[in-house]
């Protein structure tokens, strides 16, 4: 099918670069359309929002209409319809964080910056958002900057971090990389491109470890594994690895080895079934 491109187009060099990235994204999925969410993150990494060119690019890449792409892009809150600030500052104002102080942090930031929810400062630095629960309730009140964790915030600590961002200084999250990336940089990671910062930052903050520390202090443990090898510090060598690794080509039980991957995947019948289910 030929897709009519109604949007603007990237220049040739940009288009070629993004097309190479897109090919990598598509290779991760048996069905090309599954690449749409990462591709939308990818075009945000280029333009700082889901631009008309970005929508056209996704549509062309996946053989969809721009309307189909827009319908998906507008469903998810992380996709921005207007140019986003360099840093999204999200204050959790869901019930628990809000009550623990998130409301106060929000009030303070919105007043300081002179902008409301989903608005961006005139210099394009900060987009302010009231965010929903970000799965860090034991660190309440929580603030996210470009989706990195700033735990146990106060109005002062939040204002300090935001002030440093505006001044162009690097800021480090409580649990995350050494430095918060820009909205575009982080969008590229969300498209599935590892930026090599995984080894930075802590494994866990204090609340994450509280139960474990209490257990260690009291000598509480889970029951030992039956074979007696409960001492997990005994080293890497799996004791029975030699015995249990089956020989190559040995029958592997019930798996009839349905092939994974796009080539063998579907068949028109399946697509039809799925399509009709969708319409219902």
């Amino acid at each position, binding site marked *: 099918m030929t897709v009519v491109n109604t949007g603007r187009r990237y220049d040739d060099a940009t288009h070629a670069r993004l097309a190479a990235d897109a090919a990598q994204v598509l290779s991760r999925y048996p069905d090309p359309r599954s690449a749409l969410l990462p591709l939308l993150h990818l075009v945000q990494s280029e333009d700082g929002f889901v631009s008309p060119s970005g929508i056209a690019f996704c549509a062309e890449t996946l053989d969809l209409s721009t309307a189909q792409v827009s319908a998906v892009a507008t469903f998810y809150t992380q996709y921005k319809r207007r140019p986003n600030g360099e840093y999204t500052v999200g204050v959790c104002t869901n019930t628990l964080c809000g009550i623990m102080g998130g409301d106060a942090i929000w009030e303070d930031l919105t007043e300081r910056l002179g902008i409301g929810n989903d608005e961006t400062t005139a210099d394009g630095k900060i987009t302010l958002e009231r965010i929903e629960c970000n799965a860090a309730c034991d660190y309440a009140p929580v603030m996210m900057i470009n989706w990195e964790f700033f735990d146990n915030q106060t109005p002062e600590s939040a204002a300090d971090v935001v002030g440093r961002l505006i001044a162009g200084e690097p800021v480090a999250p409580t649990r995350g990389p050494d430095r918060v990336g820009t909205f575009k940089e982080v969008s590229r990671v969300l498209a599935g491109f590892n930026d090599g910062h*995984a080894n930075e930052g802590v494994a866990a903050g204090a609340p994450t470890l509280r139960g474990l520390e209490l257990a260690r202090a009291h000598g509480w443990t889970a029951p030992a594994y039956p074979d007696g090898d409960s001492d997990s510090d005994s080293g890497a060598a799996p004791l029975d690895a030699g015995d249990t690794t089956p020989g190559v080509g040995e029958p592997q039980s019930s798996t009839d080895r349905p092939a994974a991957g796009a080539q063998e995947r579907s068949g028109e019948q399946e697509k039809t079934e799925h399509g009709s289910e969708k319409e219902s």
Partner: protein
Amino acid sequence: MSPTPTLTPVLSERWDADRSWTLSSYEAHGGYRGLRKALSMDAGDLVTTVKDSGLRGRGGAGFPTGLKWSFLPAPDGGPRYLVVNADESEPGTCKDIPLMMADPQVLVEGVAITSYAIGCHHAFIYLRGEVVHVYRRLLQAVEEAYAQGYLGKDILGSGYDLDVTVHAGAGAYICGEETALLDSLEGRRGQPRLKPPFPAVAGLYARPTVVNNVESIASVPGIVLGGSDWFREMGTDKSPGHGIFSLSGHVARPGQYEAPFGITMRELLEMAGGVREGHELKFWTPGGSSTPIFTAEHLDVPLTYDDVSAAGSMLGTRALQVFDETVSVVKAVSRWIQFYKHESCGKCTPCREGTFWLAQVLGRLEAGQGDPGDIELLLDLCDNILGKAFCALGDGATSPVTSAVQYFREEFEAGMHSAADELFPPERSSLFAYTPRRTSGRLAGVHA
């Protein structure tokens, strides 16, 4: 219940290790022994082992995991999929994200074992998009596992092949609903599908699919290694095993406490240093905002799926949010309903319209401008949502409303003349001292 409550760190055991997120650390602590053992077993026996362990889905519903696996139809030569639900977004729920941050390899090992057990050769981990560092750690964990031969072609010489894709969402609570998640993973709006057919029959790309929660899958390596009897040494007969209990809110030491099922909130609260000093418990959620709230009278309910259900709520995700006497229950519920209204996908009328109406009524009660009959209106609205919505999001939205009216009706009555912020000054609830700037009931900067 056991006379002395204890914790049973299994999943959390490695969280304090040096660079715990790396493969070398995971291997040094016994990682991937479960996979080696699994690959020597018959896939059907693995399913039986997990069935016998009694492991129940850790994502909230508590459906037996092994049973879910066994619902897959017989192989027909086409692909079948494992999709891990890592879209942790239920208010109060904060267990999977720290697990994947500190120990992503245990999830990858669980994915490999489960995929082998169900005959899957391409598995997906659907992570919510708002946790970039967790995504980095998962991407790296999968890369390291490929490099070491735990994923990819001919895993550990077994002849078994598996690819794993880690996929980031883009901000939508509804994608935690398994069929909405599948639509989202297919590159569509994340809206739930009509069931049946269930994902086991027609899931991802209309192929047989198992969708399991992060903690469920992360529990599998231990079960394979220890056996079902080992797992059943913890917990109760119908809710066996270990689970991560997440305490948050007005407790002295909020955090993650991995305990056997059947521990009580009283015991957990004591471990967490009790309610913050000088205050007392008012209400709490056993499993996130979609589970009916509990009060001090429920402190001794054993935290098992069945006991919590019998006491009128749901165990959910063991998201134990604690609120003390300074908190207005009307305000708390009103804020939760704002969330459901915001996150309703719009597909079905009871949820789309119902959450909108609930938010309006609760908003005026919170502002002290409620009308006579508003409580009845709230309950009527809930009655028109519960059981009539397309998926559990709508049902969940009614839980805090009906339970709060049940236990704190007088506060809703007060909402007809007094604002929540006047009755319960918000600065008394916060963890730091401040002077509120706004008048009650008006949320600065909110357009939604």
